[in-house]
């Protein structure tokens, strides 16, 4: 077991390093010049000497590979560089923004798991065909609704028409509700879709027939036999969805004008502030890796068949499938 955990940790670090490398080369090798952006679009009144001085200050005049090695060394020491527009250290910018984002992301995840999972169980358990069809038509709808629009509609109804929740800002619990619901919608819809599909397949398994032959009631068959088996792929999917949730905060925090990682990202992209964007991408990859590490550690507790090979293959298959239904 210890070897398994250690192996997974090494793998996680590897993925992080690779994600950093990919984002470095995407951001620095493609045509954009952070320095001329820094000095303003109207750079005609800047002398080439001034430009070169700034380049040198940031180290942008060195070969790309040297910059990469240098920056990677800094990252290992926790130094993510400085923002090009505010000149503040990226790590402290991200550190300040993390708190409010974690609040809505966790609340959103919880809502998504509870509502999505509950909907899937209910939809596969009810016997009335019409009710089942109605319940099963909800997740595809949730997947199709744009998150930014859903947030605005929620604002319109619950902040302006019926002033239940505050429209903007970060003022305690009440201000978390609407952003969390907005984040939970696409994630919950995907969970509901995957779990209900998985439940339907599992309920056709011969071992479920064995349970029925024992005289077990439908609820017992559903909860004791089908759910635990069906939950395994949904659990893997949930781990993968956490990263998407972080991406969703960019839109959600913009809609609700909340401070946080998403807002920081949106502003940084607007200003083409490359060090900040790269820092956020790294955090995104870190969250993804941690969530999946957690899932991998919980998984053996639920599934005694510790076949790691097949399991990792399963994760990948699930990843592609989630990617296909997950919404930006």
């Amino acid at each position: 077991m210890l070897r398994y955990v250690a192996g997974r940790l090494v793998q996680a670090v590897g993925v992080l390093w690779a994600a950093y490398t990919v984002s470095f080369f995407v951001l620095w090798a493609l045509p954009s010049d952070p320095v001329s952006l820094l000095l303003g679009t109207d750079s005609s009144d800047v002398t080439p000497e001034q430009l070169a001085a700034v380049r040198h200050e940031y180290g942008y005049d060195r070969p790309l590979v040297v910059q990469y090695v240098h920056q990677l060394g800094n990252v290992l020491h926790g130094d993510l560089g400085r923002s090009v527009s505010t000149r503040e250290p990226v790590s402290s910018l991200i550190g300040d923004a993390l708190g409010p984002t974690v609040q809505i992301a966790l609340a959103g995840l919880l809502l998504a798991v509870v509502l999505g999972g509950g909907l899937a169980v209910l939809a596969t358990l009810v016997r009335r065909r019409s009710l089942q069809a109605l319940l099963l038509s909800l997740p595809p709808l949730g997947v199709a609704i744009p998150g930014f629009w859903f947030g605005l509609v929620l604002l319109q109804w619950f902040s302006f028409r019926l002033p239940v929740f505050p429209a903007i800002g970060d003022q305690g619990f009440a201000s978390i509700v609407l952003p969390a619901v907005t984040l939970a919608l696409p994630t919950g819809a995907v969970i509901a879709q995957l779990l209900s599909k998985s439940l339907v397949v599992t309920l056709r398994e011969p071992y479920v027939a064995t349970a029925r032959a024992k005289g077990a009631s439908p609820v017992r068959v559903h909860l004791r036999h089908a759910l635990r088996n069906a939950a395994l792929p949904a659990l893997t999917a949930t781990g993968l969805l956490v990263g998407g949730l972080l991406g969703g905060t960019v839109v959600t925090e913009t809609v609700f004008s909340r401070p946080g990682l998403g807002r920081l990202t949106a502003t940084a992209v607007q200003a083409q502030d490359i060090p900040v964007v790269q820092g956020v991408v790294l955090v995104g990859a870190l969250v993804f890796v941690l969530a999946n590490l957690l899932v991998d550690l919980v998984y053996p507790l639920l599934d005694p068949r510790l076949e790691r090979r097949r399991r990792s293959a399963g994760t990948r298959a699930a990843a592609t499938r989630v990617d296909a239904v997950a919404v930006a």
Partner: protein
Amino acid sequence: MTDLTTLAPESAGPATHDRATELVDLVVTPPDGARHADADVAPRAARLRYVLRHLARRPGLVVAVVWLVTVLVAAVVPSVVASGDPLAGVPADKLTGPSAQHWFGTDQLGRDLYTRVVHGTGTTLHAALLAIAIGLVVGSVLGLLAGFVGGAVDAVLMRFADVLLAIPGLLLSLAVVTALGFGTVNVAIAVGTTSVASVSRILRSEVLRVRTSAYVEAARAGGSRWWRVLLVHVLPNSVGPVLVLAALELGTAILAVSSLSFLGYGAQPPQPEWGSLVAGGRDYLAGQWWLTTLPGVVIALTVLAGNRLARALDAEGNPS
């Protein structure tokens, strides 16, 4: 106990097709007889009738297809669906609600919102289709290479795909947009990048599934060269799931493209685009609900219709 082995390197010895055939073969016929004697190649008229009956039982699918066709027409020749000028406003008519004259109401400059949504269709759809094309072409090449060549090529490509999957899709798009700059085409490239990994994975796993199937082995044992195996057996039997994925990606791409334009990285004003139209209504949430709600409904319906079509294609591919 002779049966204490859990390691069985061979495939199960005695075949148990009885169970599988028990349900499938319920059509009772003499053994080995021509069970589907009546299943001759259907004449065209009969096939058409079959398709129509198939559709009649799926009204949702019909509505979805009709909607998608309308959207497509709006994208190619918007003036057929809405004859007005999307950029010309009548200041006197500003911020009026939906009416017979202005179906979707008007904005703060008195421009007809319906006309703007229709004329924005092309921009959004163009970006979404470009994104899918990028993801599909790049992803297919990588997936085919990984699945068919295997070995180190496969390992390297799939680790690369792992990394792409580890970066949340929207963040990856944002990184690409940061590097490339704003605009519709750049947004399309950014969105397309996010689907490369999943397309390549699916095609690879399909290629592997088909490559190890008994009929490919039969072809190999029959002396077929590798390129014949690839062209005759592997490709035609692997593209199905990728096409379904492409259809599914249409919805995802529309959502991603409009999200990025909503954030202001796509089409620049005054050019209409679905996501930026929703964003444009943000300042009028309290009073003018239609400015955000109606363009959003159009997006949601289009994504819903695209996904419905994808599911139908999927069901057609594996009729189980």
